């Protein structure tokens, strides 16, 4: 049964630029987040292109080492805080209210504020390029004392940018918790919630727990730099290793902040195109919660080489191995969902299947670097670079692209060009592997990360990797075209464009109206659209 509930909106959006500045509508804010994230993805991607150009051949060709370090630092910061995180908040804004039968987010004005902080934070961060001494060049992990005693003056701007980004994320997270708890249709029980909502709810708790710790770390940096404290300065009784503990206490939950919503997206796409209910709904929920809990107690596996006692290394190693269990539950559930399903391979499904495959490669290399004695070999090499690009690019970013194609018909009421989208998929999936797979070999052979030049034996794989990088980079021109073409010229889409799709959002009009679910959905409808069946 397809119910198309048409509501007449009691007012339509304002015209012109002020609509976007003043908006409190979750769909508008979702779009703003997504466009901001996309622009940042291109900015961060351009920096990656500069990095790959310099590494195309051994020797110093195009840029000086100082600028190279600024590129790696800003590429990491922009991609993490500017692209992946805002993209997921954008997806959350767009989808969560529609998925739980709510008319909007619980705190719409705060929602507006948490978005509009972002362009300013991004602007402050990027403005450091034009300052004396250049942008921060100490890596995205900004270890003290590199980021305190030896950093350029622009670091203070970086600190304020991180503060603002933190504020934005925390407000976004509070909003999502309040929305899920307060705005959920009264008839919707927790175990009726779609997995994207579940994963975002759990991610919100990670954000609320972890982002303030990052704010604390950068505040300590700020006072160390300017007000004579010595949190990280050994001369004053502080300890630079403590910086790493505080940073990674934030940093490890942070990596799950970037992947849990991705798990949610994939748990929607795969059942749809396998035309089967999601296998193991409740185990998915519990696995997500276990991963979130474990993410708080494994941080020092990033620090195996700081001279920890063996007992500490063993604890952090075993705790890290433990994360493979709930993650494995998820991967097997996705595979079981596809097992004997009537599968079709539309673009979102292609991205989702390649997510499962490639993310698992990243997961395996994660287990490898999590083994304390083996990590002595891998630490700070290109193997680590390959590992986290497999989980963040072919993991987090892949799910964002899958989500874009999957929900684009609902956002725009129009269908994208399937042929072009599949061409784009194959272009991206091949080039991304040419880009990152050789980096495993480079790392195992001992090429260190964050260097502008390398010895001759690394030349061939670097050239292959760079060629893959340029191909992957240009694939986003096609992606941009496909999305804009869909918005402008797409053919009208059905309310439920995917045959096997379940979820309250598909009961709305083909293009979800400006205000949806002014009346909450009925128990019957919720049951019918639930993933938990």
């Amino acid at each position: 049964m397809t119910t198309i509930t048409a509501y007449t909106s009691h007012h339509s959006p304002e015209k012109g630029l002020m609509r976007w500045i003043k908006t409190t509508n979750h769909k508008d804010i979702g779009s703003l987040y997504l466009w901001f994230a996309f622009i940042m993805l291109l900015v961060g991607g351009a920096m990656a292109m500069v990095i790959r150009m310099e590494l195309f051949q051994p020797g110093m060709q195009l840029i000086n080492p100082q600028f190279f370090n600024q590129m790696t630092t800003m590429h990491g910061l922009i991609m993490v805080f500017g692209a992946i995180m805002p993209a997921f908040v954008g997806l959350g804004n767009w989808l969560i209210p529609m998925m739980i039968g709510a008319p909007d987010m619980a705190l719409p004005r705060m929602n507006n504020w948490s978005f509009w902080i972002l362009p300013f934070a991004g602007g402050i961060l990027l403005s450091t390029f034009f300052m004396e001494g250049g942008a921060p060049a100490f890596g995205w992990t900004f270890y003290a004392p590199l980021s305190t005693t030896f950093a350029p003056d622009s670091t203070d701007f970086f600190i304020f940018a991180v503060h603002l980004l933190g504020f934005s994320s925390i407000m976004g997270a509070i909003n999502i918790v309040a929305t899920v708890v307060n705005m959920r249709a009264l008839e919707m029980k927790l175990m009726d919630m779609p997995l994207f909502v579940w994963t975002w709810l759990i991610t919100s708790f990670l954000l609320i727990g972890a982002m303030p710790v990052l704010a604390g770390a950068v505040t300590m940096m700020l006072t160390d730099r300017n007000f004579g404290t010595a949190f990280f300065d050994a001369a004053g009784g502080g300890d630079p290793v403590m910086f790493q503990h505080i940073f990674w206490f934030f940093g490890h939950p942070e990596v799950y902040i970037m992947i849990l919503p991705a798990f949610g997206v994939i748990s929607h796409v795969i059942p749809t195109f396998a035309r089967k209910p999601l296998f193991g709904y409740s185990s998915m929920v519990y696995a997500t919660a276990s991963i979130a809990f474990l993410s708080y107690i494994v941080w020092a596996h990033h620090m195996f080489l700081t001279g920890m006692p063996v007992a500490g290394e063993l604890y952090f190693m075993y705790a890290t191995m433990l994360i493979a269990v709930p993650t494995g539950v998820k991967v097997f559930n996705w595979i079981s969902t596809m097992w004997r399903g009537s599968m079709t391979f539309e673009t979102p499904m292609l991205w989702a299947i390649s997510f499962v495959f490639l993310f698992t490669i990243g997961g395996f290399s994660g287990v490898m670097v999590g083994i304390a004695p083996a990590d002595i070999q891998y630490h700070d090499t290109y193997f680590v670079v390959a590992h986290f690009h497999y989980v963040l690019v072919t993991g987090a970013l892949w799910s964002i692209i899958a989500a874009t194609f999957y929900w684009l018909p609902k956002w725009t009421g129009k269908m994208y060009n399937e042929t072009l989208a599949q061409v784009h998929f194959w272009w991206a999936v091949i080039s991304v592997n040419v880009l990152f797979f050789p980096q495993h070999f480079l790392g195992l052979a001992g090429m260190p990360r964050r260097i502008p030049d390398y010895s001759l034996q690394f030349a061939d794989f670097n050239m292959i990797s760079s060629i893959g990088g340029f191909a992957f980079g240009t694939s986003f021109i096609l992606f941009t075209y496909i999305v804009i073409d869909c918005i402008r010229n797409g053919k009208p889409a059905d309310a439920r464009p995917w045959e096997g799709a379940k979820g309250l959002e598909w009961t709305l009009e083909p293009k979800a109206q400006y205000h949806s679910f002014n009346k909450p959905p009925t128990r019957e409808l919720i049951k019918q659209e639930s993933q938990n069946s």
Partner: protein
Amino acid sequence: MVDTSVRKKITKTFWIKLILSPILMFAFAYAMVPIYDVFCEITGFNGTTGRINSEQVYAIDESRKIEVSFFAMTMGGFPVQFKPKVNSMEVIPGKFYTTSYIAKNNTDKVVIGQAVPSVAPTEAALYFKKLECFCFNKQVFEPHQKIEMTLRFVIEPELDKRIKDVSLSYNFFKIKS
């Protein structure tokens, strides 16, 4: 119109919790500083050495010997020559020993510094106890002054039998004021 009567009510305590938790986590980041210090002191994590206030009597096994090596380093252009008087000594666990480090200020200015100790392997740090050390206070070096700074220490017999070598290093940092 949006019908709000069918929404769940959110309680005041929930709001307070939601807003308080980020503030508490921010405070927790600062709380990690003393927690880290206490943790290092208890476990010897990070090579933090212990301190005792008076000479104690330990059960002494004369046959057991440990080689202690001394290292000296300076950081960030600290303008004082700094080295151990002896590079290493043989030590029986439970006995107190005295040795010293020599420092010479080669400049025409008064230099103030703080030495930070570290013991390797970290498993030994817990049992390396100092009764007297120049690292307990900051040191003032008059222009061209050469001083001998004493160190009195004991390695407690509880130290793991497998450990035969211990190194103690000092890192001198300049203090601004």
